[in-house]
């Protein structure tokens, strides 16, 4: 019962915040509502009993990525010009609605094999075991820092003064 109420509140606030991201004229306010949307997604993870992912979501998205985005908005002085739409506004809207209709139709007509087992709690030891243990995801874990290193070096090279 409590999970249902929490889900509906988080879902409505999250969808409102996401709509505000694409509909608000002010770029800075759009970035702030994006932060709100990230926070509601963290709450959705908690209702799915993914506690570790909720913490990671708050740390990475709310903490780091939103700061990067707001910094980029401050650095580019496009705030006065707002966030106008291009000529493809109507076709983009139609495509998005068609996509939503297709996905909802498909997922409502699929017989999902829902398991009745209770969720694992807490998830952190199990995730650690999967990431670093025998037969787990150790190779992707080793590749991820390489990707991050390449991204950091690429970002530094791209914005370096000549």
């Amino acid at each position: 019962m409590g999970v249902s109420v929490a889900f509906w509140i988080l879902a409505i606030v999250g969808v409102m915040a996401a709509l505000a991201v694409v509909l608000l004229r002010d770029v800075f306010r759009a970035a702030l509502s994006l932060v709100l949307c990230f926070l509601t997604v963290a709450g959705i993870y908690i209702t799915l009993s993914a506690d570790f992912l909720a913490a990671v979501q708050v740390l990475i998205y709310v903490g780091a990525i939103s700061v990067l985005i707001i910094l980029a908005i401050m650095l580019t002085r496009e705030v006065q010009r707002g966030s106008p739409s291009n000529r493809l506004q109507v076709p983009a809207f139609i495509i998005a609605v068609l996509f939503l209709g297709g996905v909802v139709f498909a997922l409502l007509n699929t017989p999902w094999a829902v398991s009745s087992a209770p969720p694992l709690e807490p998830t952190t030891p199990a995730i650690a075991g999967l990431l670093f243990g025998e037969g787990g995801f150790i190779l992707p874990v080793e590749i991820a820092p390489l990707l991050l290193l390449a991204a950091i070096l690429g970002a530094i090279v791209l914005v370096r003064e000549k």
Partner: protein
Amino acid sequence: MVGLEHYLILSAVLFSIGLYGALAKRNAIIILMSIELMLNAVNITMVAFSRYIVPLLLTGQIFAIFVMVVAAAEVAVGLAIIIAIYRHRETIDATKINLMKW
């Protein structure tokens, strides 16, 4: 009672909003923010599948962690590209950045 379909529909709604924003907006930073919305929607889907289909395996949560890693790298490089373009051309209007358009 909230079930798997509720989470999937929520994630589809968020993904569609992000898709609309990525296709219809001119400000490159707003486009990047819409892409982040879409990645978050996909993450919700994977965590919901992990919770309801295989509650004891957590594979979807591992995938969500890797999606977050790639999203962090993508946003760092993307914003660096946007700032480099702004330095050269004084605009980040995606309709005016058409140097590679045929």
